[in-house]
Each structure stands twice: as C-alpha cells, then as structure tokens.
C-alpha cells in the first residue's frame, strides 16, 4: 500500500495541523510516512504545500513525483489547481470552495470550480460554512481533513485521537469544535461521494 497526498492552502490556514494529525495517525497504524513542508518566507500569506506520503514499505523520496499523487487535499480552491499536475489521472481532489483572496488577480470562482470538476473524482466542500457551524471559523482545515478521511487509508478514531492531542492545550471547547468540524466535513464528503 502506498498513498501520496498533496496538501495545499495559503500560509496561515493550518496545512501543517492537518499534516500533524495524518502523520501521527499513520505512525499509530504502523505505517511509514514522510512529510515535506514549507517554512519561512513562503508562509507569509503565500501559497503553501506539503507532500505527505504514506506506505507500508520504506519511503525514500520526500517529494511525490508528478502524476503520482493519490489525492490533492486543499483548504483553498485556487491552490487546488496549482498542484493538479501532481495528481494521478484517477486521483481524488478534496477541495474547499471558500476562496482566500489576498491577490489582485484572483480568478472568478466559477471558472476555478469548472477546472476542479474536470478531475474524475472531486469533492468540493464549503469549509467556511461548516467550520462556522462547528463553532470556529479557523477549523476549516479540520473540515477538510474530515472530508478527506473518507478516502484516506487511516482509521477515523486514530485521526480523531490526534485532533484531540493537537488542540488539548487550547482547551476543551476548541477540541470539541475541531472534532465537530472533522465530523461535518466527513458527513458532507460521504453525501457527495
């Protein structure tokens, strides 16, 4: 088994928190993983991505080759498109529909969605709406992780366990909000897929 994921979003959207949960759930499941991430200058409101690889055998490369990713998991629709060339033709796109507009030439949303829908497997999720419903607008990343969990070769309870670990220092309310965000994302993806 091998499962390669491109995580995408804008600096500050919590891509690395998604990665933390998946990494630890993979370790818990006895899988090998490697996860290359971006720090420093690129984080300041710029495009950020992380290559996350899961496998039951040793992984060498930290980077996913073009055309081999099983999934693009993105917290922002324009960022989803930026990494399309990494996706296998039969790979899954799990993308937020909520735009992060901090550039003057942001393209019309409908055109972005039209392009995303060209991927044979695509799940578009209104992460902003669901995160609000869960009680925390910042929990969009966990909404998207919940949606992706439908496809991931990981157990739901392992993912939830590390959502708790990730947020426990910030108090019980935030843990609950993020678990709810995960659940709402998961349900939304199950309905669409």
């Amino acid at each position: 088994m091998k499962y390669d994921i491109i995580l995408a979003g804008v600096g500050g959207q919590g891509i690395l928190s998604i990665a933390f949960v998946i990494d630890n759930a993979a370790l818990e499941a006895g899988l090998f993983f490697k996860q290359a991430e971006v720090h420093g200058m690129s984080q300041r409101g710029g495009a950020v991505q992380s290559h996350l690889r899961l496998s039951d055998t040793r992984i060498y490369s930290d980077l996913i080759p073009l055309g081999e990713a099983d999934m693009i998991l993105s917290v922002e629709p324009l960022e989803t498109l930026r990494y399309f060339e990494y996706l296998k033709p039969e790979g899954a796109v799990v993308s937020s529909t909520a735009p992060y507009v901090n550039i003057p030439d942001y393209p019309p949303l409908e055109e972005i969605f039209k392009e995303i829908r060209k991927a044979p497997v695509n799940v578009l999720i209104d992460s902003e709406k669901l995160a609000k419903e869960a009680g925390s607008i910042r929990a969009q990343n966990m909404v998207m992780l919940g949606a992706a969990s439908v496809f991931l070769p990981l157990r739901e309870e392992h993912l939830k366990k590390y959502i708790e670990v990730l947020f426990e220092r910030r108090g019980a309310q935030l843990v609950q909000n993020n678990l709810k965000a995960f659940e709402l994302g998961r349900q939304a993806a199950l309905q669409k897929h």
Partner: protein
Amino acid sequence: MKKMVLLGDEAVALAAAHAGLTAGYSYPGTPASEIMEYLIRLSNGGENLLARWCVNEKVAYEEALGVSFAGKRALVSFKHVGLNVAADPFINSAITGANGGLVVVVADDPGMHSSQDEQDSRYYADFARILCLEPTSHQEAYDMTREAFDLSERFGIPVMIRLVTRLAHSRASVSVREPRLPNQGLSYGHPEDWTLLPSNAKRRFRLLLDRQGELKEYAEQSVFNQLVINSENNKLGVVVTGIGFNYFKEVAAKMPYEPSYLKISTYPFPENKLRQLLEKVEEILVIEEGYPFMERFIRGVAGIPGKVIRGKMDRSLPSSGELTPDAVSLALGLSQKKGLKVENFKIAQRPPQLCPGCPHADTFKALNEALKDFPNNNVFSDIGCYTLGALPPYNAVKTCVCMGASVSMAKGGAEAGIFPSVAVIGDSTFAHSGITPLLDAAYANTDMTVIILDNGTVAMTGGQPSFGTGEPLNRLIEGLGVGKDHLKVIVPLPKNHEQNVKTIKEELAYHGLSVIIARRECIQILGDKKRS
C-alpha cells in the same frame, strides 16, 4: 527503542542532546531555525543542557568553541549563509581543533526557498579540511549527529553536519537510543594549540593535514557510505550523495534493474570505493543535491578515458535548484508520468506578503510618500520580512544582499553621491550586523538616513528574541555617536501617517547621519500574546 515523529532539524537536535550536549548556540535562519527551537524545548522540558539564540552566527560559533575548549560538547547551527558570517572562527577552529566534541550543523537551501543563494556547504568543510557528514534520511540525521560528536572527539576536529531544506523541513519517524551524559568536569584545551600565533598555527595546520589520511580511512569503512555492485549489469553506475540517494532509490525501484551505486555520505569521500565503482561501469551518473561537488572531482580536467560521465555539468540534471524525483527519473532514462492538466486557465501567483496590520507596511507607505520630493533617492534594504517591501504594492526598496548590508551600502552609496541615501533594516538584523557599519557612518557623519524597523522580534523565522529592541536600542544608537537631534522614534500606524511623513522628510533633508526608529510590535507576536 522509542519511535518519534520528528523534523530533520529536530532529529539533529535530539541526537545532540542524547550525545551528551552541554550547550547549543544558533541564530535563526530558514531552514535551520527548528534545530534551536527544539533544543530550547528540550531544555525547558528538563534536559540538562543550555540552548541559546545568539546575536549572530559568528558569536554563536565562538561561544560553542569556548564550550569545546572547556572540554564539553557543543552544537552550533545555522543556515548556509550563516556560515559565511561564522567563516572566520569556523576555518580557524579546524586549526585549534576541538577539545570537547564540536558539531556545526549547516542547513543549505537548494532552490532558494527562503534564501539569497544556494551555496553548498560541502565546499566549506573541504576548505577547512574537516569531516562533513551528509544524512539522507531522518534516521541518519539522528545517527550521524550522535556519531559526529564521537568523531569530533576522536579526531580532535570540528565536524560538520550538512542538511538541506527537504530533509530539515520534512517529518518522519525516527528510532531514538538511550542518551548519554555530558562530559563531566572541565578539561582546558592546551594554550599552545589554541593560541594561533603563527608558530603554533603552522604546527597545528601540519597536524590537520597529517590527519587527512585518518579521515579518509574513516570514510572507507563508514557504514554511511555504501557501495552496491550489480554484477549482472555493468553499463551504468551511479554516484549519489545526500538526499539525491532518496530520489535515486525511488526511481530505481521502477527500472528494469537497479544500477550499481556508491552512496556517499561522508567527506572526505571514500576514494577507494569510488575507484571500484568507476572501474566496473561504462557510464557514470552523478546525482547530488547542491553544486556538482563530487562530479568535479570525478571529471577532473580530462574526464576518464572510455567512460561517459553525466550529471549537472552536462545538464543531464538541472544545474541549479532542487533535485526532484522527476529530474532524476529523466536522468536515469525513464519517461515522466503525466498528471492532470489545467488548460487555458491562468493560475494566478500567490507570492508571500506582509501580514495585514504589519507595522512595516505603514513605514513603507510613509517612506514612499516622504521620498516623492527626492527623485534621486535610493533605499537600500536588508534581510527580513521587510524585504517584501521590494514587491508591489510598496516597491519601496532597491537592494537586499546580506545581513547588515543596507547600512554599509547606504554609506557607500552616499559617498558615491546618492542623495538621499536610505537604509532600511530590522531590529534583529541591526543587532546581527548593522551596529558596526552604523558606527562607521557615525564616525564619518555620513549624509544618510537609517530607518530601523523595530518590531521587537525575528519575525520572518517565527518570532525568536531580538537583542536590540525598545529603549535599550535608542541608547545603543546614541552610544555609537549618533546625535540625539537626529535620532527620531516614530510609531508606524495609519493614524500617525502625516506626522511620520513629516519626520522622515526632515531627516532625509538633513545633511548628516540620521536614524529613525519605526517602533511597533510585530502583529503576529501581538496576536500570539493575545491568544495565550
């Protein structure tokens, strides 16, 4: 054995702690910052070690050298260009030698994700004639760092660990071993070894040269260098270094056969093993992350008669930027897979930018307006978040070279006739390398204006402490000889815009040295404080 999820940087830090580290020193810089961040976490978490941010890399290196002199184990870490700053003590510490284990971790940034060049630190190790270990995986980062302390004490020299961004900032699980204790008690270095008067230095340098044979012997038997011969196929042999090994193994799994290869992870490199591989095969491909360091050795001037040598120098692999599995795939003769394509749709770029509410933005707006009256101005800038002032919508700065260069270049520019000649530098960058050029300018009362953006932190790398901020910074600047009349403090906020423009204009017009401190806390740090 315990398994832990660690960044490459963190694997190095943990290994140093487990190797019996007494003290670690660093200056922040991507992709090396997380080494010290992790050491500080370990230290706060009860590990008996000292972990310190320093004012710059040269100071960090010298502090580590002092620990080594005292017979204890020291780590110093920074990004590749930090080694330029620390080059003086680095090169000379190979001559003094190490007493307690001294390990210098340098994180190179091929592809310049967050840097102004992609220099390859293996050349520095070669230049200093010391050992360099180059891990290919997180486990090796841990294992090699532990071994590096032993090697440093065994050979009596500093040992370099060379990381690259893709390992420094990648996470994987690492098996960790039992820690050992730091060296106990003090054991001073011998004064005749550590006092580099020419008579001592000549003897010490000869000793360093005499040791090269032992270092080469180590390379031949090191488990980190692996020669694997495929006796079924002698067409292609691969010489692969650092994380190039990962891409090679990824691609080799898809080839009809795995070519013979030599994985090189220590420098000096294992010459005999290399010769064995070269003799066996008809064609050699050299894969390395960074400059074509090994490739130049292998090619020499005349190449190897009858053999084809490929690598970066013949563009079989890209000669700049990071390696990718795709580039290595092509070099090994495999075709590239095609992913989904986005056609007839322009994906707008999303470059990094100053955060909403950033004080630098208000300073740049005021500066730009003040400069309108001075068409022949030039603004020299420096390394930090504020380098983003070079991009739209600000387009406010015209240079960025290296730490502190804004102040010295503004002085040179002023002396060449630029008026007004302006330097823009952050508080931490100023403490790092801006003080000495400002002393130079104060001594000469150069006709220039220095704007210090005092946000109280090292913002770009995640908010490490700044050494020259707030009120003490004012006194420091006065102490350098800057006149009180032309030392101004402004608060960069939209409501102060008109007043700030006026202050800046007055100082630009003044024919002599002015310093303006634009002081407001980094918006990220302020947010973090409010959240906690």
